[in-house]
């Protein structure tokens, strides 16, 4: 009994200490916004790695999700004779919820896990230590550019997701199922509000970008420098970031749309 209590306390303390370390790391990295001379090339490289290389998975998923939404929406709405509302339904669900959330989840799997594994392996092979001994802060050189790349990429990816998704919806709804194109767009335009829907969706994506990159980078930086340690850290990145995205999404939705 005492042993179990002790173990519980120990785990609790460890978790708290890790949380503290992660905040310190976040603070230090945010202080280092990439400077033009050294930082920008590193940031660009990471933007390519984290953002551009995630494009394919984002575009393909966006397309299919938009198509499915449109198809499902049509089969339900056609019973009430209001299939023109498909455009509005597809756009609203994408912009408000699905784009930030699904893009965030895909981003965690595609880019987050890669970030964790990369930084973890650098730690295990003492590359971070040797960089420290050369007199270069790895937080500045390795962690900060990846952080900023993540923050910048996910909102953009999420917007691309929305656009491609709406196009997918259009393909299925208008070109295949024969909804009148004019009402598809008109309903969408009338229903989607820039501030309430689009902006809130972007805010969500920014928050998810922070959460995922922070978790990914911290797990890599703080991992146990062995092969099991890295594999554990990568798993944790995907699990923690997916759960946090879903949890934070609920909170944000309640805050943004709760009183509507």
């Amino acid at each position, binding site marked *: 009994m005492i042993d179990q209590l002790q173990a519980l306390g120990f785990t609790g303390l460890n978790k708290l200490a890790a949380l503290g370390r992660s905040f310190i790391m976040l603070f230090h990295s945010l202080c280092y916004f990439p400077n033009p001379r*050294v930082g920008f090339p590193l940031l660009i490289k990471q933007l390519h790695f984290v953002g551009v290389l995630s494009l394919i998975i984002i575009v393909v998923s966006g397309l299919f999700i938009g198509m499915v939404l449109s198809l499902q929406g049509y089969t339900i709405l056609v019973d009430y004779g209001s299939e023109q509302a498909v455009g509005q339904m597809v756009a609203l669900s994408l912009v408000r919820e699905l784009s930030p959330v699904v893009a965030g989840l895909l981003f965690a799997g595609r880019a987050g896990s890669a970030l964790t594994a990369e930084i973890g392996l*650098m730690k295990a*092979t*003492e*590359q971070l*230590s*040797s*960089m*420290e*001994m*050369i*007199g*270069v*802060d790895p937080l500045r050189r390795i962690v900060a550019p990846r952080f900023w790349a993540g923050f910048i990429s996910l909102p953009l990816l999420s917007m691309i997701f929305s656009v491609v998704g709406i196009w997918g919806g259009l393909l299925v709804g208008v070109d295949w199922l024969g909804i009148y194109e004019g009402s598809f767009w008109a309903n969408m335009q009338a229903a989607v509000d820039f501030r309430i829907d689009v902006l809130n969706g972007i805010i969500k994506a920014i928050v998810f970008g922070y959460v995922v990159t922070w978790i990914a980078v911290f797990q890599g930086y703080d991992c146990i420098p062995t092969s099991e340690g890295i594999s554990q850290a990568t798993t944790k990145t995907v699990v923690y970031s997916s759960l946090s995205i879903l949890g934070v999404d609920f909170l944000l939705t309640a805050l943004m749309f709760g009183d509507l």
Partner: protein
Amino acid sequence: MDSLDDYIIEIEGMTFSRGERAIFDNISLRIPQGKVTAIMGPSGTGKTTLLKLIGGQIRPDSGCIRVEGLDIPKLNRGELFEIRSRMGMLFQSGALFSDLSVFENVAFPLRVHTQLPEDMIRDLVFMKLQSVGLRGAVELMPSELSGGMARRVALARAIALDPDILMYDEPFTGQDPIAMGVLVKLIKTLNKTLGHTSIVVSHDIQETLSIADYIYLVADGHVVAQGTTQELLAETSPKVKQFMQGLPDGPVPFHFDAPDYLQDMLGGEQ
């Protein structure tokens, strides 16, 4: 060599433990300026740990570590990175940056700490690589190097900035006799011509004795013997003799702390 200024690194009453195990127990040692100091001792006594303590990568539980008069454990992040730019360290594993080519690895310290023009960086990198015999490998990626080559590149990177203090963690391991001879000469030349302070951690007794001005023999968290090569060779205590002559039997245990062998083997059958 008695005045304080002659010691560039001073460690006093330093204690450090990993978990329950005390790696260093109230250890004191001083590294003379501009000389080659060797640190020898059985595997696992904490020689690498000692270098990391000097570099400020880990903090001691107590005691002080002064480098050029600055107390390393008390420095803040910025000061620590500033003093590290005057140290060079060859890691036991090499620790090259795997995403950079050999050229970029050696150029890395030059690029981050100096504003030298590109052609000068190129010349410097080629000179450093030439001195470790790997100018031909300049285009390769670290994954394409052998273990011994990777360490030599890492050595070239460590000396790229001509730091005041050079720490070599096992520079000779995995080198063929020719490379070994070259490296011994290189360390000696760097020390004599440029006046670097060098700390060499090594098990290769012959090579180390041939370059070291002063030797510390560390075991069980203490300095068990120190002195010049002659003094250590003349030492009669059994521990020192055993280590210097590489005898398996003697007071220095070959085995890591463990329960009795026979008991362990018999215990497994119960």
